């Protein structure tokens, strides 16, 4: 599903350039539940952004579902993000002026799906994440865990191949973190490839496979026996 080869990425800061990813090789198969772990500043988010076609890389190749993702036009990038990927962020990024249902439905809007169908699908997903009764609530009326569940529902609504989450539990307490992780495992069990960036070992422990990043290179990989698929 995800296949990257010798990806290099550096940030130019005035005269000097800072190399953040120093040649990363990684393959993630369809249906895997993978975590990317590493200390702060190791390049986890940068890698995830490249996987999410939000960022460019200078060297190497990235194939998503068999298609090379390089030098895409804005329009093409938007298309792949919309159809292939679902994002979950640490700070949720729900639109404050839309209720839970509207937030979940938003990605389908960019697929030109009718309002009625959008709302019906959004409602189904809210039921699935256990928030059907909060559909009409505004984000500021929801708890952190509820917000993240809404965000996960939003990531799922376009039926993407891959869910990418950057520190999805970073703003949550441990109990809600567990609930959210359970949800991710359930999503994964339904057949979606899930990639979670985290710096917490407890979170990584709940995934089947962990890629350890350090200073822009993959240090090693661990597999958790007994974790999901």
């Amino acid at each position: 599903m995800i296949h990257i080869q010798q990806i290099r990425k550096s940030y130019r800061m005035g005269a000097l350039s800072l190399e953040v990813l120093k040649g990363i090789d990684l393959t993630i198969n369809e249906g895997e539940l993978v975590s990317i772990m590493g200390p702060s500043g190791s390049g986890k988010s940068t890698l995830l952004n490249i996987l999410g076609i939000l960022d460019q890389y200078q060297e190497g190749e990235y194939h998503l579902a068999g298609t090379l993702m390089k030098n895409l036009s804005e329009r093409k990038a938007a298309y792949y993000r919309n159809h292939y990927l679902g994002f979950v962020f640490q700070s949720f990024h729900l639109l404050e002026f839309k209720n839970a249902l509207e937030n979940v439905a938003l990605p389908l809007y960019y697929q030109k799906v009718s309002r009625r169908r959008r709302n019906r699908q959004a409602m189904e997903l809210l039921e699935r994440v256990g928030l059907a009764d909060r559909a009409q609530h505004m984000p500021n009326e929801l708890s952190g865990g509820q917000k993240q569940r809404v965000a996960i529902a939003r990531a799922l609504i376009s039926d993407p191949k891959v869910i990418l989450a950057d520190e999805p539990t970073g703003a949550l307490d441990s109990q809600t973190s567990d609930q959210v992780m359970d949800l991710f495992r359930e999503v994964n069990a339904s057949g979606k490839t899930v990639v979670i960036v985290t710096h917490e070992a407890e979170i990584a422990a709940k995934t089947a496979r962990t890629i350890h990043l350090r200073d822009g290179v993959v240090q090693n990989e661990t597999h958790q026996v007994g974790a999901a698929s």
Partner: protein
Amino acid sequence: MIWNTDHWLEIWQTVRKNKLRTVLTMFSIAWGIFMLILLLAAGRGLENGIRYQFRDDAANSIWITPRITGRPFRGLRAGRPVNMTMDDYTQVAAVPGVEHITARYNLRGNFTVRYGDQFSQFPIRSVHPGHRYLEKTEMRRGRFINDRDIDQRRKVAVIGNRVVSGLFKDQDPIGEWIDINGIQYKIVGVFTDVGGPGEQRMIYIPISTGQAAYGGGRTIHRLMFTVGNADLAESQRIEKDVRTLLAERHRYDPQDPRAIRLFNHVENYQRFVALFNGIATFIWVVGIGTIIAGIVGVSNIMLIAVKERTKEIGLRKAIGAPPSDIIGLFLMESLTLTFLAGYIGLMAGIGTIELVQHLLNTIPNPPDFFRNPHVDIHAAAGATLVLVLAGVLAGLIPARRAAAIDPIVALRDE
């Protein structure tokens, strides 16, 4: 895009979030359009006022009155009267570019005109058939004087509608005979004239009849002709040809300013047209300047909005909004704001003008130089076009700024 409820919903949601800001911006646009409309109407009022002063006589005409030479010429002394005759009429009529032409033989003062036992005083003009085009004479019944009347010196009269009301009351005057100074004239036509009550009291008779009845011989007192659609240069060319012709015929210095008095209405009219155009241009410049200030205001406010909505835009891009969609969102918002505001300004402007018109109609002595101010369909269409352009312009920079937002930067967790 326009019929998409979601877009309208989003615009409504952002507008509601920033009520005061929205209202202030809209006010600046509304004010700009309001001023533009008022200025345009005021310009139109002035123009109508000036046109009203010109209402009586054809604006494309040249009038010539013979006078007395002011310079000696080829051995002839100064101070000779220029005596124009029917031959001048014939010759000037042949000058290329001369359209409708008439001579006048003046019958001075008012004449007692009698019909049955009714009588009253009216002025009389003896003229050629072409005269009706020079005074904008509008026939109501019957006909104007024709060539046969001239040839046969018929005793026929064409009378103004005030003559009718003065002598005939409700009776049909056509075919009736009136008595002017003991001579019977048959009425062949009734006219009206926008020139006012004075013109509507006029009685026209054939010039040949006038000359015969009052001992004029072949003398004429004035030549008047129109020049069709001639522009200023063309009218001046015709004027020069006629001047040369008359100077040769009557043997005076063509440069002599006193030999004839010539009045070229085209020249005057063109000068006023140029003045109106100047005023109109000035008004558009001022009005558009005001609107530009409004555009800059809207643009600025939307730039702030884009900045405030950075995270939102970043998220929209991350979940797959194409750049065109982001641009469309902001363009629509700006278009909606400017259009709504502009419409309010337009309506307020038109309302104010209606009020002014109403006042002008009710006051006893409305000013002559300012008449019937109004906004015509072209001006309104122009203002609307300016509005749409303004909306697009105002939204363009903010929309592009929004589309250029980098989602990574926008969504980065602090």
